């Protein structure tokens, strides 16, 4: 809208990066976060997290499989998507994307394969018909399991998990860097961006695991492993504090510097982003879970049922918080005109190619895939051990 006091460049009336680009960092955030959680057990030997380690790893793969879908839907020429690996321009922050993504995918797939190998062989031996052939294909025809192969598999899993942590951080920190390195954008351009992205990734990874872990157990009428559940809740509490504080410190420092940048950004924060950023992201979905998680972590006498529900509730709220954060960064940054004199508008539309319906579909599909994965790689079964 052009009002007497506001001006945007004529080409800025259309927002280039739509809600699809909001979903991409959201999904990769869960990928990286879930992977890091699984590594807590594999690498740092947190035995309490053992019940959730495999679940975390497979969730990571389910989200990873669909992380590129919003990007492909957004590309003007998706048929040329592989140009990014065929003719990469390494001066571009974006050019490494394909390689980092593929590399990370390889690590996750290998880690899953090695951590499920013994179990899959057991299933292969017990199954019949086509299912047997599917398992045979997955285990690549190798049916050797004994004490030394199990030790060997564990070693490899530990190595991959350790190696995967920096790669997961790179994958997601890199997304932050893509935004943070755009000097033309007042809201994005900050070296802190990739650090904020890594921490928010861990928050969303922990939140989605807690949310699903409890949810699946409610549906199956089973009880969660209280120790690991509470430990994850504490981790979530800690990481969300770091993520939110980092983000607020960033805004604080811009406002204190009080340059021309703040003149524009304060209008953004108090105007277009007032509801989605100030009210929703900060007050409702950051402060809310912070208070709830503080209570569940500090009040020892709280009844377990209530405590578990509150933890589950706050994990759901934090999932929304991270989605809001992605929206406020990606869309918020594009609302600011490069003329520094006004703001443009954006609404994705309900049934558009890059609209809300498609977005919900893209978010839901990884969860359905996760359900299918559960059939192949059961998350919460007692691991089969060699006799």
């Amino acid at each position, binding site marked *: 809208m*052009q009002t*007497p*006091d506001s*001006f*945007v*460049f*004529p*080409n*800025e*009336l*259309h927002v*280039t*990066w739509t809600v699809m680009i909001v979903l991409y960092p959201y999904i990769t955030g869960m990928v990286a976060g879930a992977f890091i959680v699984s590594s807590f057990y594999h690498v740092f030997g947190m035995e309490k997290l053992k019940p959730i380690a495999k679940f975390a790893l497979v969730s990571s793969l389910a989200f990873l499989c669909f992380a590129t879908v919003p990007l492909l839907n*957004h*590309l*003007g*020429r*998706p048929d*040329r*998507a592989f*140009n*990014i690996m065929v*003719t*990469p*321009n390494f*001066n*571009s*922050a*974006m*050019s490494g*994307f394909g390689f980092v993504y593929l590399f990370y995918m390889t690590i996750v797939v290998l880690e899953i394969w090695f951590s499920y190998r013994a179990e899959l062989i057991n299933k292969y031996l017990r199954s019949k018909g086509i299912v047997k052939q599917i398992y045979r294909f997955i285990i690549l025809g190798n049916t050797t399991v004994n004490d030394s192969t199990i030790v060997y598999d564990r070693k490899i899993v530990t190595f991959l998990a350790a190696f995967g942590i920096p790669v997961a951080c790179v994958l997601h920190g890199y997304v932050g860097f*893509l935004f943070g390195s*755009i*000097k*033309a*954008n007042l809201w994005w351009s900050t070296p802190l961006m990739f650090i904020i992205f890594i921490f928010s990734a861990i928050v969303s990874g922990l939140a989605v695991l807690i949310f699903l872990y409890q949810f699946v157990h409610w549906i199956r009428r089973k009880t969660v492993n209280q120790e690991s559940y509470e430990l994850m809740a504490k981790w979530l509490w800690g990481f969300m504090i770091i993520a939110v504080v980092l983000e607020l410190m960033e805004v604080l420092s811009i406002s204190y510097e009080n340059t021309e940048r703040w003149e524009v950004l304060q209008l953004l924060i108090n105007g277009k982003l007032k509801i989605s950023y100030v009210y929703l992201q900060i007050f409702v979905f950051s402060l809310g879970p912070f208070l709830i998680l503080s209570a569940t972590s500090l009040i020892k006498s709280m009844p377990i049922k209530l405590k578990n529900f509150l933890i589950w509730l706050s994990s759901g709220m934090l999932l929304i918080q991270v989605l809001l954060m992605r929206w406020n960064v990606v869309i918020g940054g*594009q609302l600011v*005109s*490069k*003329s*520094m*004199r006004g703001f443009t508008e954006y609404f994705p539309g309900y049934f558009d190619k890059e609209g809300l319906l498609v977005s919900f579909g893209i978010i839901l599909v990884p969860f359905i895939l996760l359900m299918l994965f559960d059939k192949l790689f059961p998350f919460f079964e007692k691991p089969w051990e060699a006799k």
Partner: protein
Amino acid sequence: MDKIDKIERRQFLKIGLYTTAGIMMGSLFAFSKTDREILYKSPEDLSKFDWGFLVDTTRCIGCGACVRACKVENNVPDSYFRTWVERYEIDINGKVRVDSPNGAMDSFKDDNFNEAEIVKAFFVPKLCNHCYDSACTQVCPVGATYDSPDGVVLIDKDRCVGCGYCVQACPYGCRYIDHEKGVADKCTLCYHRIQRGEAPACVNACPRAARIFGNLKDPESKIRKILNLRRYGTLKPDLGTNPKCYYIGLDMEVK
């Protein structure tokens, strides 16, 4: 009667066949010749040029002829612009108001802001700055945006994936995604024209010679001579893009 008919028919077919063949052969020669020879210039030849642009804002009258010429010449999609003109108005209270209705396609018909007396007003044409260190070239992940040897920032539309990263990176809002082709687009300084020795369409169309175009490497060129003589500025110099579009009479309000 029948015999004559047969002969005539045969004759007719023969003549028809020869005529068609003749027309086809003739047209092959006629249409294979173009009135313009295709010029192939080696990179060495091209690197003798460094195309630059100069906008004398003090001369611009905001007629929008440049915007219209550009639209026609380059088939620019509706509501996107390779060049546009901004109007700045400063009123007696020091309040600044800027507008560019439809990129000044239809010039500036009404005075939108008339609550206070306007003490200063001017027009600023904008276009791709063809920066020496362009942010868009840096960020293109597939190398579709490149600097030509004669100093023009161009897009290889057969390679562009339409990710829009360059649109985000350009600090001047000069790029857009052509949704019909799914690729990025922007001003090329009318590369097809300048290769034939013609001026870009907007330069040609400007009735006030507010837009000057030329070879920065040639000390005798008009643009070089003016730059040697006048004081000028560039847009957003702090971003380190080193724009090659120079402005005479640039106001601090112009960003």
